[in-house]
């Protein structure tokens, strides 16, 4: 319930935070909203020597329309995303998932950057970020670089973010598919993390599926794009039967999580059910 002792540094800017990261080396961790990190520290599962707090940096708290994409500062809270008309309009899957993270109190404080940097396999956003074909912007001492969402999640609790880099922005393309997107979640009844979180972005033309991206959270060790579902529906006329056939491919060939409460079989079946519901909703 009480973390181990650590040194605390408050960063005055992103570049200050980066230099603090360099200065404090391996044991340093970035603290944003703290809603992923502090709980693990209280259980002493995480014992950083130094915390570098970027929570107060207003330069990271924004949502803006850049034409081709929405730029979301890493410090934007889930509540900011949930309540943003802009996101609701251009990427409803993101506002829907933001509105289902944790609870009101967690959403008031937790940030999108924190969730993505922490890369909890049970988080809501990762599948959404994949389905929305987002780009993740990070900054290090060498400057800024961008990482495609597809390259970002590298494993259980692992990402393409280097230890001395800070995640600063998430970019969501303002394409037709993202404007017609949704996120449906089958929550674990206690934690309410997704057993299955299914995000779909799909554009249609003349009753057919023109472009489709499907992302799953919670199903596997990391979030994944489901090319099986996508390929089955791409270019097909949207009908009850084509959707049923496509959703039957959900998580096919994927390794699926199981535990004492939920079997692999059930999770796989729910991935199919939620794929079908999401596809039906967007058609």
């Amino acid at each position: 319930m009480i973390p181990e002792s650590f040194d605390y540094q408050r960063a005055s800017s992103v570049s200050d935070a980066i230099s603090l990261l360099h200065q404090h080396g391996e044991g340093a961790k970035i603290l944003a909203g703290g809603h992923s990190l502090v709980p693990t520290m209280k259980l002493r599962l995480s014992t950083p020597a130094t915390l570098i707090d970027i929570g107060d940096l207003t330069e990271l708290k924004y949502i803006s329309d850049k034409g081709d994409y929405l730029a979301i500062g890493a410090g934007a809270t889930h509540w900011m995303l949930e309540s943003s008309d802009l996101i609701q309009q251009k990427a409803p899957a993101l506002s829907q998932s933001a509105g289902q993270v944790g609870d009101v109190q967690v959403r008031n404080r937790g940030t999108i950057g924190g969730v993505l940097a922490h890369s909890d396999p049970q988080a809501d956003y990762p599948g959404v970020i994949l389905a929305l074909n987002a780009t993740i912007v990070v900054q290090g001492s060498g400057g800024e670089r961008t990482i495609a969402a597809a390259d970002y999640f590298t494993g259980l609790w692992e990402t393409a973010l280097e230890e001395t880099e800070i995640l600063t922005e998430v970019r969501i393309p303002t394409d037709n598919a993202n404007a017609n997107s949704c996120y449906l979640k089958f929550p674990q009844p206690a934690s309410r993390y997704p057993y299955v979180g299914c995000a779909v972005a799909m554009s249609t033309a003349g009753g057919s599926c023109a472009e489709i991206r499907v992302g799953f959270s919670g199903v596997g060790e990391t979030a994944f794009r489901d090319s099986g579902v996508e390929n089955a529906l791409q270019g097909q006329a949207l009908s009850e039967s084509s959707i049923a056939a496509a959703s039957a491919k959900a998580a096919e060939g994927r390794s699926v999580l199981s535990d004492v409460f939920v079997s692999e079989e059930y999770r796989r079946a729910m991935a199919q059910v939620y794929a079908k519901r999401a596809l039906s909703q967007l058609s």
Partner: protein
Amino acid sequence: MGQYMGQSVKRVEDQRFITGKGQYTDDIQLPGMTFATIIRSPLAHANITNIDLSAAKNAPGFVASFVGSDIPEAIAGVPCGWQVDFKNGDTMKEPPHPLLARGKALHVGDAVAVVIAETQAQAKDAAAMVQVEYEELPAVTDISAALKDGAPQLHDGVPNNKIFDWELGSGLDAVDSALAGAAHVTSLDIVNQRLVPNPIEPRSAIGDYDDSRDYHTLYTSSQNPHVIRLLMCAFVLGLPEHKVRVVAPDVGGGFGSKIFHYIEEALMVWVAKQIKRPVKWTAERTESFLTDGQGRDHKTKAQMGFDSNGKMVALKVETDANLGAYLSTFSTAVPTYLHGTLMQGLYTTPAVHITVNAGVTNTAPVDAYRGAGRPEATFVLERLVETAAAEMGVDPAELRLKNFIPPFDGSEDQPGYQTQVALQYDSGNYEGVLKRLLEMSDYENLKKDREAARANGKLMGIGLSTYIEACGIAPSAVVGSLGARAGLFEAANIRVEPTGSVTLFTGSHSHGQGHETTFAQLIADDLGIPIENVEIVHGDTAKVPFGMGTYGSRSLAVGGSAIVKSLDKIKEKGAKIAAHLLEASTEDLDFAEGKWTVRGTDKSVAFGDVSLTAYVPHNYPEGLEPGLDETSFYDPANFTYPFGAHMAVVEVDPDTGKVDLKRFISCDDVGNVVNPMIVDGQIHGGVAQGIGQALLEGAVYDESGQLANASYMDYAMPRADDLPSFELDRTVTPCPHNPLGAKGAGEAGTIGSTPAVVNAVVDALRPLGVTDLEMPLSPQRVWAAMQQAK
């Protein structure tokens, strides 16, 4: 009746709670207080081969540390409060439950050592430096497995882990022959899963010691401070009770789990004396999961036989009861006297017999959890009845109505009903609650809705349950003969202050039940004084004469009756003073609206004048003692028997197996009601916990004995959006043997609701061929049952 009784008076205690001024144990800070962290076994069954405290002793802020061998042998451990002997007369096995493990850990969370430091953080840091070496032993968590030959053995002198076997009823031969002759027999194997009570306030205990007068104080989050003091002084630490004060301040919910005397309470008292400073321990939530007394965990085989007219002819029940690693205070009473004795249910079944095998396993101790035995009994009965109705093709409401005990009010003309399983019911109108429930739910149309839904491919289900419970524990002579090591009466001291205001010192602790309001209503009306003039004091052994505490829905029926007795004494003495002041005879006085009046005249004297006279006795009856302060102890004549009928309406998602609880309707009869708002609140809370058991909750131990869901991230409990609004009504059948006619409302909701929900879900799936489901009815379980039925 005056202006308060029967009214939904707003609660007196709320002011402090809604402004953040409640004072719970962990809120208490004493000068010089230290903090304890308990090192707990990470293994379910292990020999402790070495404990290395050297690093911890050098940690910043370290004050002291203790292991099991530091505690004198004479302090054997916390006792069990109820002796249930074997069928053959052999004495119950009662293995010790030491304050800190002595060489062996028996469940995950078993206390191994304690470290005390200046701050809570320092205590945690130092505890993290303690190195304990374990030699892991095979563990057993399932009760049926534990009772078999060859199972891992927990305690010396407890062969096959068996604590006792027990039986009650008409006799095995009688039920077997009745079953053999039955036209229809319904059989079920039932698992009543293990639950974690989870009051939102974690347990907390502060020990304080004043060496100048050798005086101990324990602040503890408890439902019954006097019982804790009695057990701790007489059976654990060997302290004289006049040198020990136990305070249970505001307590953040209990639900049974804060009845029991826990090792941490005695340990903090003992440690405080060793270090001569106050010491506080507060459970983290995971500690609560691992060490709070848990509930249920029965495995039962049951058969119910019917004749060709659908009349019940026999009930046979065999239960294995898991008591956990140690015998908690009431643990042995739960599967026996609080469970087996309820197997008659509301029915006239002429042959009823139950056998119970109880044993220990490498799990947290199991004891009373809201309902305590009665939910288990009701679940067995009501699953059987509903299953039988489906098998015989009759309406489940009709089947119940056909078999109910006819209405009786407990008067000489309609005496109590003697069951096959020892109890004598006090009064009841069982068809009354069920008929009212059917009306409330519009049952006939609901059944039509179900047919229409089914025709549309929807999985809609209706589930019923009716129940009776035994509350108001307990008549001392009866429970004493059954093995209870203490009588379960209640005490009330009413102190009338000189100016006529009143302080009640009650043994019924309030931790959410609203006693500070209900008892004040009772007193204010009876004495004809404003409710603001009544103060209720509870939870402190230094103030209250004695108390058996709050559990078993006993506070109004037993604690309230003690108050009535004291009020009668106050009025009797007051009348003597009034008669003196009015120069009249007591026989000629009437007491009403707060004054004594000479019958037929306008001569009167007010209550406040009488009380002042009692304390300023210049003009006073000869030979009468001054003062107006009366104490009573009320020992009930019988248990009380609330009853009711519950209904759940559900729809099951055919794709996911998720249960949507559409409606929950109940009609309960808890006897006379003092505050309807508070009683409804008790039903609400009970129903929510019962629904929690049906749909969400269940402690899961893996094979190695780890509790797989020892946090709120894994143990599912109802949240606001898991539940509907509840539809409630009540009938009133007064209890004939206590002065208030009250029966008790605390557990009713929990007892009736669980089987109603399970029956509804099974009903929804019955068209698919599903006939039974194991709780909790998680989406995966329901989905798997649907897959299997396909």
